């Protein structure tokens, strides 16, 4: 799996209240949610992002509330993958569960600038700054996360697993 897009750069400790403030959580429609993605810090984010773009952040991205509306809003805004130095744990689970891949790389997180064209290869963990040719290597994805993303999210992954179990029982 390979993604390529423009970098949108954020800092450290971006919490889920910043990703989508609670006052917008009275709906669960993802298109509606994406309109308010980063409402308090980058108003109109969804209109600026081109499908496939890449979000780059510092440490502890997605801290705080467990609201899955956060990765859903980012994904629906058009972001294909997030690169950060580290992620808060609930956000990490939620993003993979809804089919939004995350990769961790301290170097890439520090070196990539806003507006750069970047490519991310999920299988190899290779991140390339297309403009400068600089390459970075992310921590390899844990096996379970890779399988969840390949299936398209947790629901699909569990369904496939269940079907395989039934198949092996039938044999």
């Amino acid at each position, binding site marked *: 799996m390979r993604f390529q897009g423009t970098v949108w750069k954020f800092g450290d400790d971006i919490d889920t209240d910043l990703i989508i403030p609670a006052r917008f959580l009275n*709906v*669960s429609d993802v298109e509606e949610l994406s309109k308010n993605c980063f409402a308090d810090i980058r108003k109109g984010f969804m209109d600026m992002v081109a499908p496939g773009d890449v979000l780059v952040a510092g440490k*502890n991205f997605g801290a*705080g509330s467990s609201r*899955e509306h956060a990765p859903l809003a980012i994904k629906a805004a058009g972001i294909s993958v997030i690169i950060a130095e580290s992620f*808060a744990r609930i956000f990490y*689970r939620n993003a993979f*569960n809804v089919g939004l891949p995350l990769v961790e790389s301290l170097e890439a997180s520090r070196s990539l600038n806003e507006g750069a064209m970047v490519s991310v290869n999920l299988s190899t963990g290779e991140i390339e700054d297309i403009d400068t040719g600089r390459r970075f290597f992310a921590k390899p994805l844990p096996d379970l996360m890779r399988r969840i993303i390949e299936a398209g999210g947790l629901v699909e992954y569990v369904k496939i697993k269940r079907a395989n179990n039934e198949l092996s029982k039938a044999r």
Partner: protein
Amino acid sequence: MPMTITEKILALHAHCDHVSPGDLIEVDVDMALANDITAPLAIKVFEKMGTPSVFDREKIALIPDHFVPNKDINSAQQAKAMREFAARHGIVHYYEMGQGGIEHVILPEKGLVMPGDLVIGADSHTCTYGALGAFSSGVGSTDLGVIMATGKTWLKAPPTIKIHYEGGLSPWVRGKDLILYTLGMLGVDGANYRALEFSGTVITGLSMDQRFTMTNMAVEAGAKNGIIEPDGITLSFVAHRSHRAPSVCASDPGADYERVIRIEVDTIEPQVAFPHSPANVRPLSQVGNIELDQVFIGSCTNGRLEDLRDAATVLRGHSVKKGVRLIVIPGSQLLYAEAIKEGIIGALLEAGAVIGPPSCGPCLGGHLGVLAEGERALSTTNRNFIGRMGHPRSEVYLASPIVAASSAIRGCIAGPEDR
């Protein structure tokens, strides 16, 4: 091999003899929880799973508490979707307003969590139940939707950081001050993916209400769970609330900890977290003059009976300063009634507080006390992120109910000695 309390509970629920940090395990869930914000998404996921019924209608709790009484048509639609799902699937633990309150206050109150249980909730403050010696952790709606269908989830066993508290607490210092002090040491990601185990004679001397405050905020350091070994106080709390036998687990001597931090509490003062991080903590004596527009006492962190009792003790015989709004929200219907009987609510009203209906209230900035641009609040809640309680250019300071009540009297951040 020796194990920590967290590893023991995980091993029991994964049906294996031993669990070590880093092990990826599939566990049985004793209680799955969601609220009016996270349940609607979880219900969509459950329906996508194509399972005709929930895994166990007695092991799911659905609690409307975030935007209730409903604040607008959209939130009413969400609450309705959850109510109808609960009725359709015969969910036993659905508690409408008037029977319930804040999820993390009422689950322990109704005896729905016992020592040794494994609780997963679509709310980050699910870690609260660790005060009962249970493993409990927050997830998102997709994880919860899948659990409602299967009764199972996957977890990576966390390494444990043990925080050991010794010494004697000053008279106005509470569990809230201890956890804020600890967050100041750890930082907001200092326990990311870890278990936080609170121990020592200071912890065994704390009431259940104060223990809940501490485990509640474990997630503010990024922790997967916060936990306290059950003791006599825990067992007497659960004894008359449930027919189920507690499964008491304790850490083995020689259990492996990633870190052990020892804190001498004797000189700890009441603590205040400054904007915009719960780890941006200062002792009360170094706060300076911070004038306030609003004070909020309540939430899953500090909306319990002892918290309201503390506030009333401070406020009795005093009035809320003119120009300051004091909002008090009891965490549940039951404790609200108890607070009326004890004369707590009367004292608060007399001092000039407004009392809100049991719910999350203004904690998350959507309802019942939203801040305007440039306004400043002191709150007994758990987060003071940018825009958390309203306008992105408002400010939230976090402290205990004692500091909150004292500050409401003075109109600026203050302790009970400055009343």
